[in-house]
């Protein structure tokens, strides 16, 4: 089973549109390459919008825990506020302050309390509160789903806004996808990656046999491409590069190709800017299914063919 991850550095270069196209092309190959799909962009999960899958299972995802101060036990000493390094303990209002403040006031929210958005769940306050008045409460930070799309099983997730632990949720989605791929003897797992280079990307890259970096020929796209390439090199994942919206700045595309040549990176395609991609998205279909002869579709096919060779996938003869 081979694992392909699609990354970019910069957001909005077309990772998801390409992931959907590859899912379609894999499925429709003369000898079908059955693939499991994973949407690792848990902050802003869009692959389901183009694949329109049927949801089969929903699971809650517990991220970390948050500290909660019991106002009845709290004596207002303020040690929690002193030890917290994340500015997550809110000072009481004047009437809620100090050991003399009545419990009623504290209970109604005027005593020491934890800001749930700022709290990082380190529990330093829990262990240092002399009254043992603080407990940790696990938080449901989001959900992950197992779905079935026209082109294969899809594993995806949604993190609630303002949550942390996106890396953990990405790892969970990928692990589920990987187990399904192994159990079902699928030859391929396609991971639609998140933008950036931090934890969610590192989680998405882990275990990949091949990374495809999709960039755009803009100064910003080129700059971020270099950062993501440093990241995949850091984690020793073989990487290929393609350019999307290649014709909006041909000089930029040339720069990218020159950069790849210099670094010994394989450049696998130039996809032109094509409004059909947006039309396909609005229609809830991969562009290669929506309009196979469009300029973007043709080039995506070319990129896909390069990927199949690079991945050396052994398609399973029809079962």
């Amino acid at each position, binding site marked *: 089973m081979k694992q392909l991850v699609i990354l970019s550095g910069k957001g909005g270069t077309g990772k998801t549109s390409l992931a959907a196209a590859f899912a379609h092309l894999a499925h429709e190959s003369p000898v079908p390459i059955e693939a499991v799909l994973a949407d690792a962009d848990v902050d802003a999960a869009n692959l389901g919008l183009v694949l329109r899958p049927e949801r089969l299972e929903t699971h809650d995802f517990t991220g970390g825990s948050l500290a909660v101060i019991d106002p009845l036990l709290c004596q207002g000493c303020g040690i929690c506020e002193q030890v917290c390094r994340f500015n997550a303990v809110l000072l009481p209002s004047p009437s809620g302050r100090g050991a003399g403040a009545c419990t009623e006031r504290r209970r109604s929210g005027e005593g020491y309390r934890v800001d749930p958005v700022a709290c990082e769940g380190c529990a330093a306050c829990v262990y240092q509160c002399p009254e043992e008045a603080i407990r940790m409460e696990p938080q449901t930070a989001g959900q992950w789903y197992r779905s079935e799309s026209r082109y294969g099983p899809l594993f995806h997730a949604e993190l609630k806004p303002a949550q942390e632990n996106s890396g*953990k949720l990405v*790892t969970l989605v990928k692990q589920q996808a990987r187990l399904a791929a192994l159990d079902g003897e699928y030859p391929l797992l396609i991971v639609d990656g998140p933008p950036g280079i931090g934890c969610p990307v590192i989680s998405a890259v882990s275990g990949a046999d091949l990374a495809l970096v999709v960039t755009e020929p803009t100064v910003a796209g080129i700059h971020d491409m270099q950062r993501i390439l440093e990241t995949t090199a850091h984690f020793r994942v073989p990487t290929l590069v393609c350019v999307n919206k290649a014709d909006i700045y041909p000089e930029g595309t040339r720069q990218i190709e020159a950069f790849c040549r210099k670094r010994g990176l394989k450049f696998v395609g130039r996809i032109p800017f094509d409004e059909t991609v947006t039309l396909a998205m609005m229609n809830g279909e991969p562009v290669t299914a929506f309009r196979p002869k469009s300029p973007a579709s043709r080039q995506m096919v070319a990129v896909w063919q390069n990927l199949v060779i690079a991945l050396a996938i052994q398609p399973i003869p029809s079962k």
Partner: protein
Amino acid sequence: MKIILSTASPSLDSDIDPRFGRGAYLLVVDIESLKWEAHPNPGVNASGGAGIRAAQFVTDQKAEAVLSGDFGPHAFAALQAASVSMYVYGDCRTAREAVERFKAGNLERVGAATRGECDGGHHGQA
């Protein structure tokens, strides 16, 4: 000799679970007598560092070797520090099969982490 395996269910005849830190169960097996004990893996619900938590379980049990599907860099570092040897399942399907192959010296021992890692939510201080 005591070894530990990551498994999907609490039994020696269970399917293996390839995940060391997040596999459902950790099976503690005496390889001579084949007496075994299943424990829910304490790493399963860990927020980050699941492999480390599982490694602590291994050292608390005073096991000498671990059999699993792969070992991330943190789990590897932790087990190595405790001088616990690590082996990968290869194509073993059940825990019993893995124990037999281990006894016969047919499992691959790993000398480095078998995958990259980034598993937790983390932010750091203000």
